[in-house]
């Protein structure tokens, strides 16, 4: 059986896979990192978004074999090791940007990448457009958009904390 060696959340793993094994299957079934979800199988919903070498990618349509040598970050690896939440996670909590929580990991991982790619800052319309690859059935997106707007201020150093951004 072929193997793939990759780093996930800073830890190196060598895993036996089938040629058809998807990255999300490797994460969920081999490494038991079940924070990354599968919502649609057709790359529409974005519940499976992780970062590969810093870029957001849909893990349900990425073959595990393509990730040889890659550095993967999942939702479990986003907070600091001491448990301090990433500003995006904190903003989602502050703004009630999640309800059932199923789309949340992918939504947060997409939002982090979206904000990182736009140091100049995103307008509300640009955030909405930037979430094109992520579906949420619970929130109506209203609070997700607000959370991302607040988090970008903290991530780009324009505000100290999410609480300050919320003021």
């Amino acid at each position: 059986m072929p193997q793939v060696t990759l780093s996930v959340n800073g830890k190196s793993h060598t895993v036996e896979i089938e040629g058809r094994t998807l990255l999300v299957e490797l994460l969920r079934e081999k490494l038991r990192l079940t924070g990354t979800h599968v919502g649609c199988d057709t790359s529409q919903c974005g519940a499976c978004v992780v970062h590969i070498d810093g870029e957001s990618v849909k893990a349900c349509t990425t073959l595990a074999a393509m990730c040889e040598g890659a550095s993967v970050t999942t939702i479990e690896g986003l907070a600091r090791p001491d448990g301090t939440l990433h500003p995006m996670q904190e903003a989602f909590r502050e703004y009630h940007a999640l309800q059932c929580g199923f789309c949340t990991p992918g939504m947060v991982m997409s939002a982090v990448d979206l904000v990182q790619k736009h140091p100049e800052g995103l307008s509300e319309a640009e955030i909405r457009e930037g979430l094109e690859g992520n579906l949420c059935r619970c929130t109506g997106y209203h609070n997700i958009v607000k959370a991302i707007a607040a988090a970008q201020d903290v991530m780009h150093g324009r505000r100290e904390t999410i609480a300050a951004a919320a003021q």
Partner: protein
Amino acid sequence: MNAVLPFEGIGASVKRKEDLRFLSGRGQYVDDINRPGQAHAWILRSQYAHARINSIDTTAASKMPGVVAIYTSADMTGIGGIPCGWQIHNKDGTPMAEPKHPVLAEGKVRHVGDPIAVVIAETRSQARDAGEAIVLDVEPLPAVTGTTAALAGAAPCVHDDVAGNLCYDWHIGDKAATDAAFAKAAHHVVFETTNNRLVPNAMEPRSAVGDYDTTTGEHTLFTTSQNPHVIRLLMGAFVLQIPESKLRVVAPDVGGGFGSKIYHYAEEAIVTWAAAKLGRPVKWTADRTEAFMSDAHGRDHVSRAELALDKDGTFLGLRVHTQANMGAYLSTFAPCVPTYLYATLLAGVYSTPAIYAEVQAVFTHTVPVDAYRGAGRPEATYLLERLVDVAARQCGFDKVELRRRNFIATSAFPYQTPVALEYDSGDYVSTLNQALETADWAGFEARRAESASRGKLRGIGISTYLEACGIAPSAVVGSLGARAGLYEVGTIRVHPTGSITVLTGAHSHGQGHETTFAQLVCDKLGVPVAQVDIVHGDTGKVPFGMGTYGSRSLAVGGSAMDKAMDKIIAKGKRIAAHLMEASVEDIEFDPRGEKGGTFRVAGTDRTKALAEISLAAYVPHNFPHDELEPGLEETAFYDPKNFTYPGGCHIAEVEIERETGQVHLLNFTAVDDVGRVVNPMIVEGQVQGGVAQGVGQALLENCVYDSSGQLISASMMDYAMPRADDLAPVSVATHTTLCTHNPLGVKGCGEVGAIGSPPAVINAVVDALREFGVNHVEMPATAPKIWSIIHGSTH
């Protein structure tokens, strides 16, 4: 010393306790559960809408790598059909047609997605590979999917024993009085519409894991359910004949439901049965296309409504005829949706004196239809609120003033409608006025002119709605055909040192119960939210429960908790009286006392904290043993006295591009009366989410079958789910009148958004298109449809 308490009780926007695990990837959804030795199930489903199964050859498939077993209905002997939980009676008093709903197809398949066989293998991929090697000999038969078409004489029969595909022919109201109202009417308005079929599409696909302990004979089912006790009852008693004591059903974190996870589904029975048969755990998880063709769908009504008005615009009578699509089989609560959750709502917020409604439910070769967020009430609201707009336009009345003229007066409560319900409270004028002001209704014409100057068509639409939730008084629903009671159960367990565990039969799958329910306890017992934990979703832990749907969790489940807390306080007072050597009548309890929840001898400074009382209850050295048992835990069953009646006003503003027909939602205003608000942040989120689904129905979503019965919209590439840039900011406000018959004064907020919003959006679209003379646009108001209206009239 408890300065923080007032901010965590009823009315505080406490941040959610459940968020940390969801945000850090540590939620535990069913598909995250893996049992030792687990095998995987894959289900072979029908590709045909209607076919006779001649043979199922599993010989080759059985020899595929990793295959453990393949089962068809021939193997599942002694298994009951999937039961229906509600029986409707026809006009003539006879019961509805209730054909068998087999777990796996028996001889025939009746919709695309109907399960035929289950393959169990070591891995999911191996199960799927083997499933594709099953040789199926089927004879396709003619199919019918359309609601009206299925009632036509020549339509193919879905069930041989159901003539004309008619499930029931039901009615409500006073036909003679309604006919008389029309006879004297100055205006007679007719409106016909189809309420589009929707697919709920909770983001988490359904999943089920069956486990069996061969030494004890205990079955465990982990399932994506909104009501694990109901599943235990339906599956245990009717399908698999397993006594409750040997069947544990666990619904852990569940990724959204919106109704679709209320029902007992075949896959739950399959994995439970197979796990016992094989002596090893069996897991099944749907992929999204399976969800499209096996989760119960929503809506799908064809209706004709007529309104009689006098010359001044006062409503005299309403007559409705509706055909409702049940799909191929009766899902758990399907029959009650187009009847007692629909026709009883046709009075809306208006004092229409005479109403008569007839409903025919029909079988078709489609996925079963059942309650989806709002369930019957969105269909009633849409019909009525569009009809009122059509009437205003046809008869020359102002659409706001016509509504206002016919409102049930705030002084008229309790108000008995002509269609069975008795509304307890409401204030429709205030919610209307507040919404008109928030949406700047008065300034609209200037905004329309501004849009016109940019070549755009702008429209504004209003909906003044009411719904009935907090489901429901058991005796009432029992008399209407429910085969269950609809009370709720709550246990308050005060631990020795004063922290609290709440066991509730309600189930949270996004609603934030772990926070809201903790706030109820904080408010009533004076214990900080952080020291209150909510346990739900496990029949092995929670005494009993009917689950979460119909916006009932707070109104019914919260009221059960409130009753149990009354018992805690009553017992606590007796313990406090003993400890402080006072008469029990002299003991007061104050949740915001100097010791938090504090028992005091009235008029003195002698006090005991709740934690001191609970310690005395569990370490009963000094305890009134003659009159009380040790411990401090109470359970209450709460059976509601009536439905609750949230209502309000929704206003949508849209802009349409002439070149493309694209409708842009510009803003949306919701002013809702949901009764007392426990957590405003969560209520706002619930309304926003509901509005998003309503806007989805109005502008985007549509479940489509082709003429052969093939499901065309079976993936998220083909079914338009609302995305962030399809929606606009939603302004949410509440205007409270208290529910008069439950102890919390709460009404429910989960469904109002999906109920009130679709007619507001379509009324706005029609308003934007007024120059083209259109009277109506069917949902969803997609760009091609609008483009044809704009360009069809000029070309």
